[in-house]
């Protein structure tokens, strides 16, 4: 079974590819970018095309699949092939899939389930990354606030941190929020 993954995110594409590699008899290729998209899809002669739901090229591909005479068996959206529940799951995960007409359901289902799991895994990765980035930004903010307190009050670093922490506890806020307030106030007062 030939599978084409269309994705502009190289990371997501390789995560999906890795997941599908466990399936038997699968030949997987990845296509990214808009350039000569249809020609490259046609060249791969796929049985299944997987792409992210929000991919801007979806209208182009739907039209191609609707009118394609180049393919021996026209590709249909998988909504013809699968039950509504698994479609809903894949839409929620952000996957759209197109399947050659006539490909049996028992071959498509495990593939779709895998694709959904890999898309979800990628989404989790992104959330983790965003959280990590947020934490990093918070740490930088706290460092800045500490420096401001050290410079303006002549206290040591541990004391500066202690002050931020005490204020956070007494006002029922996170240290990062207090730090942000300190930095903002400092900037407003022309100390930036």
């Amino acid at each position, binding site marked *: 079974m030939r599978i084409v993954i269309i994705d502009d995110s190289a990371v997501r594409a390789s995560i999906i590819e890795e997941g599908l590699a466990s399936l038997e008899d699968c030949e997987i290729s990845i296509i990214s970018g808009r350039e000569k998209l249809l020609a490259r899809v046609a060249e791969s002669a796929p049985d299944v095309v997987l792409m992210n739901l*929000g991919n*801007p090229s979806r*209208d182009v591909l739907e*039209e191609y699949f609707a009118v394609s005479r180049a393919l021996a068996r026209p590709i249909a959206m998988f909504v*013809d092939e699968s039950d509504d529940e698994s479609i809903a799951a894949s839409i*929620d995960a952000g996957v759209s899939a197109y399947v050659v007409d006539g490909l049996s359901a028992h071959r498509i289902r495990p593939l779709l389930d895998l694709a959904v799991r890999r898309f979800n895994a990628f989404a989790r990765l992104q959330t983790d990354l965003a959280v990590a980035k947020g934490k990093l930004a918070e740490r930088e903010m706290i460092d800045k606030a500490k420096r401001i307190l050290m410079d303006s009050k002549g206290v040591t670093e541990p004391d500066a941190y202690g002050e931020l922490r005490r204020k956070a506890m007494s006002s029922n806020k996170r240290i990062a929020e207090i730090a942000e307030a300190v930095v903002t106030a400092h900037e407003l007062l022309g100390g930036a």
Partner: protein
Amino acid sequence: MLDELTIGFLPLVDACLPILAAEHGFAEAEGLSLRFIKDMSWATVLDRLLYGHSDAAHMIAPLAIATTLGRGRPAQPLAAPFVLGLNGNAITLSCDLAARVGPLEGLGDPHEVGSALCKEVARLQKQGRKLRFGVVPRYSSHNYMLRYWLSACGIRPEHDVEIVTVAPPFSADALAAGEIDGSCVGEPWNSIAVDRGVGCIVLASAQIWRRGVEKVLAMRADRLEARRPAVEALIRAMRKAGAHFVDPSNWEVNAAVLARPEYCNAPSEIILRAISDRLVLRADGAPVLYSDFMFQHREAANFPWISQAEWLYTQLVRWDGLAYDSGDAEKAARVFRPDVYRSALSGTGDVLPGASSKVEGSLDRPTAVTAQQGAMTLAENSFFDGRPFDPDNVEGYIASQQ
């Protein structure tokens, strides 16, 4: 407690009414809180609508009909209780092609540009070349308007030219790369092609059909019933947003709102062109006033006329190569829901037509029509070839176009 509705849209100026209803507080005044999901392709907007990510969507009207009829996917009944606007699209040609078939200045005459294009198509055919046009998906008024114009000018859309799908945000890129020779797309994407110096606007879709139906607010039919009070509140809020939108003193404010990254993500100066009917047609040109380029609010422009849905059905049959089917024609007609529109606005003082269907393209001058409430005059609404569409003779109209 506000009633929440989630609305899907594509970054286009004609997504303006629900956006402005939220931004200016008209929705909140009706007890609604609106949330928006922006996408880059109509396929995604439709999927989100069908699988419940959104309650309603800004949608190309023919796609709502095609989905109801099961074209390209299993049938799912959709309902359109509100037309989001009339026209607002343009035909933009590569500067090279525009120089050969377009007018010297201003917008072209659809007959003259069409006949020049016809000669150009024949000349290129001798060299084994075909002109290529980009439209949004086949089930779009862009596609139908372009084909209507081409075929009325003697160019067979399926044989003499190639029509391909290009997502609106990429149409300027496609013109720049020479992938297409022209496009029929909504604003701000024509103006962006002009400003990049890769295209010239030669015609407005309003020159092909003076009052052509464009996007609709589409919902799953069952969701419409389940959320009926919220939908009616949304209709009232969007009518107020429309009154705000057409008032020249609000143009700049509204252009700035629609320009924001979360909406059209385009310069507000460019958005202002569509809002004010003043288009810059070629790079460094002066703005040209073309009235009712994008028609909003007046003449009950948002009323979902059954006859508009029926006209779209005739074009779907025409370009999908289908035979007339009375069952399909009826299903298509029922996608447009004037009953919901009436129920939402009855008693508000807003104008409501007396009929729900009219002969499309039959008026060549302003005409007073009967109204259920308010007074109503419809302006000229003709097709450029002068042929009206009588919804009492859908089958005959289809036959006459083959």
